[in-house]
């Protein structure tokens, strides 16, 4: 997934980075095709070049040697709301067929079965980032037809479409999973399978979503990660395999 996520980044993009896999993907992209990627963490570190894999988004390694440190008021008002962020990475406990994301509660809000951490910056990232890339394993539990709570808006839903709500960003334009990539259909914003990894069975994959997952007519088979990409991930960027297992790469 890290490799696929890295491929979604363009050189020069200003990326709002989370910890874990997104961070890894950004560093892989910087080490390969996107040397001019600018990483911004909601903690206020701008242009960070961490010399170790940060465990938290406020890791001191993100500050030392960075280009700038911003107050969080500036990060959210001037950078994010100001429209300066091209890419935002999001994950979530639940993602519905329209890319609405739940990171708040499983079950009813007032009597939750599981209390999740909540939005953090996710809600505003989903609204303001020009493009949102979602990274999550494709399972029926993670991809139900409808989420228990909408923390971060997707492409369509009970509150309307992004256009009707006049949201500044394009929302989740790509969902990177462990089996393949989902993309919203242009006409209704429903996520459909547009690409799979080599050796993955599309018929099997269709069963992994909580709704009848459409397969794009032009379904493509993704090339396997290059040996160089795998070497970077396993030996350089995540030597202790904190975030990547074999499959994840």
């Amino acid at each position: 997934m890290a490799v696929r996520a890295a491929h979604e980044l363009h050189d020069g993009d200003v990326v709002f980075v989370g910890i874990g896999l997104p961070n890894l993907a950004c560093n892989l992209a910087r080490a390969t095709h996107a040397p001019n990627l600018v990483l911004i963490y909601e903690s206020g570190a701008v242009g960070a070049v961490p010399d170790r894999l940060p465990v938290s988004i406020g890791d001191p390694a993100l500050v030392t040697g960075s280009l700038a440190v911003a107050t969080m008021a500036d990060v959210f008002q001037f950078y994010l709301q100001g429209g300066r962020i091209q890419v935002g990475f999001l994950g979530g406990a639940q993602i519905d067929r329209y890319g609405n994301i739940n990171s708040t509660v499983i079950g009813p809000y007032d009597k939750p079965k599981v209390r999740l951490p909540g939005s953090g910056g996710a809600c505003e990232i989903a609204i303001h980032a020009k493009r949102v890339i979602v990274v999550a394993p494709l399972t029926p539990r993670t991809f139900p037809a409808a989420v228990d709570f909408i923390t971060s808006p997707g492409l369509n839903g009970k509150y309307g479409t992004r256009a009707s709500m006049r949201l500044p960003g394009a929302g989740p334009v790509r969902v990177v999973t462990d089996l393949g990539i989902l993309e919203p259909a242009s006409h209704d914003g429903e996520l459909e399978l547009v690409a799979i990894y080599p050796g993955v069975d599309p018929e099997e994959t269709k069963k992994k979503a909580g709704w009848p997952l459409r397969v794009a007519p032009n379904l493509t088979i993704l090339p396997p990660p290059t040996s160089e990409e795998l070497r970077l991930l396993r030996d350089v960027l995540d030597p202790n395999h904190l975030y990547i297992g074999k499959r994840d790469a």
Partner: protein
Amino acid sequence: MADANNKLMSMRDAIARLVADGDVVVIEGFTHLICFAAAHEIIRQRRRNLTLCRLTPDLVYDQLIAAGCAKKLVFSWAGNPGVGSLHALRRAVEQRQTQPLELEEYSHFGLVARVSAGAAKLPFWPLRDYQGSDLPAVNPNIRSVTCPYTHEVIATVPALNPDVTIVHAQRADTSGNTQIWGLYGVQKEAAFAASRVIVVVEEIVDEKIVRADPNRTLIPGIIVDAVVCEPWGAHPSYAQGYYDRDNDFYVEWEDISRDEAALAKWLDDFVYGVADRAGYMKKLGEARRTRLTAKPLMSPGVNYGF
């Protein structure tokens, strides 16, 4: 305060004088400079019915909740950064005890906006947020205004004006002129928003040091009520230039907090069982201290001459 030039006091006195039962309390610091020392003293002094506000409750509020100090939590991301859950908080919410914990939930931007309004003494703050989210449906404090120029509907949050804000910082003079580098979080806004401000620092420095680099001063002494010198007061979080984040402890907290008995024992050992921060650090041990001590990486100076 009695003496504008000397607000120095012990953590015990600062908490005793400036934090009362039922207060709205902010202990800020986004991953960086989280004042655990103050939280532990609040636990030792058995404050009750506090409304705790923080973007990320983090371990610091999980501990206050476990110790029974909290009535309400105002927050935007309640996880153990890079690890997983805050189990004391989850227990309080998922298996509603006799006295359940009240929650008021925002996104980071929303809570940043609340302290900004508080600092500016405005009753609300406008932000482009929450369209398409269920958050306003569960939080009636998220409202909106219509722009008098474009007639757009813009979301609003109300001002947050805590009774007391506790800020950890690298250094301050005895008047409370406080300098911070590395991540700022919302420390400045939280301090200006509060009725009372406690600054806790790694080092007390002469006013001359502050005046030698005024652009580093984030919080002016004129809004500070107490200055506490508490080295390592932010452990297990960190202080840039002083000590690293104790990521191992954040991982250990997963198991400690998951088990109520283990958590109670931890509080007995590391909070109730010690008199002060010095005692806590002694208990923590020299090895960990040595491992976490920051290596020197000095920035060059700049010219303030004219």
